[in-house]
C-alpha cells in the first residue's frame, strides 16, 4: 500500500518564478494538508483541502495557493517566488475528521530559490 507520494523531490527555481508541487494521498485518505519546513525549523501549516475545497489556512500570503482533484490528489502552487520560500514542503493526508493521530506525511519536496 503506497503511502503519501510527492513530486518532484528536489527542484531549483529563481526569484519571481512560479512552482507547482504535487501530492498523492495514502489510499483511503481524502484530506490533504500542506506544511512548509524551513531549514532548522518545525513544519508550519499552509492549508488543508477536502472535497476539492480549501478548508483551513495558516498564515501564508495569497502567493500560496492549492488545488485538490476528484481523485484526492493535490497541488501546491507558489507564485512570485522569494528567497525565503526555500524550504522542504511536506504533504500529509488523513481521512477527514479522523484527527491528526492518523496523519501520514510524505517524503517532501525540497525547493531551493536562487
Amino acid at each position, binding site marked *: 500500500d503506497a503511502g503519501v507520494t510527492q513530486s518532484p523531490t528536489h527542484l531549483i527555481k529563481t526569484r519571481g518564478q512560479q512552482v507547482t508541487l504535487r501530492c498523492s494521498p495514502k489510499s483511503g485518505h481524502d*484530506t490533504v*494538508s500542506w*506544511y512548509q519546513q524551513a531549514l*532548522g*525549523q*518545525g*513544519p*508550519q*501549516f499552509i492549508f*488543508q483541502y477536502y472535497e476539492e475545497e480549501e478548508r*483551513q489556512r*495558516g498564515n501564508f500570503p495569497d502567493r500560496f495557493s492549492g488545488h485538490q482533484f476528484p481523485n484526492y490528489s493535490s497541488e501546491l502552487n507558489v507564485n512570485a517566488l522569494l528567497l525565503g520560500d526555500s524550504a522542504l514542503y*511536506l504533504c*500529509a493526508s*488523513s481521512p*477527514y*475528521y*479522523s*484527527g*491528526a*493521530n492518523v*496523519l501520514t*506525511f*510524505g*517524503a*517532501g519536496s*525540497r525547493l531551493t530559490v536562487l
Partner: protein
Amino acid sequence: ELKVEQNPLFLSMQEGKNYTIYCNYSTTSDRLYWYRQDPGKSLESLFVLLSNGAVKQEGRLMASLDTKARLSTLHITAAVHDLSATYFCAVDSGNTDKLIFGTGTRLQVFP
C-alpha cells in the same frame, strides 16, 4: 496564538545515558504528538498522546502528557547512536489535522 516550545534545542549525549526533552504549549489541548525526523527525510510518527496522564513507551523512548501543566516529556533511556535525529512535538490546534509544531530538538548520541 498557540505556541509550542521545546527544550533543549540541541542535545549531545553519550551512549548509555538518560535524558529528557521537554515540550510546553500555550493553550489547552489534550492531544500531543511526537515525531522523529532524520536529516533530509520526512516525519515519522512516534507517539500520539490523547489524554491527560497518558504515557507511551517504545523501546528506549517514553512519552508522557500533563495537560494541566501543558507539558509533555520525551524520555530517552540508555541512548544509542541510532536515536540521533531531530525530535518534534506538535499540538493539535483544535482543528482537524492542523498541527502546531515546536522548533525541534536535535539529538546527537556519541560513543
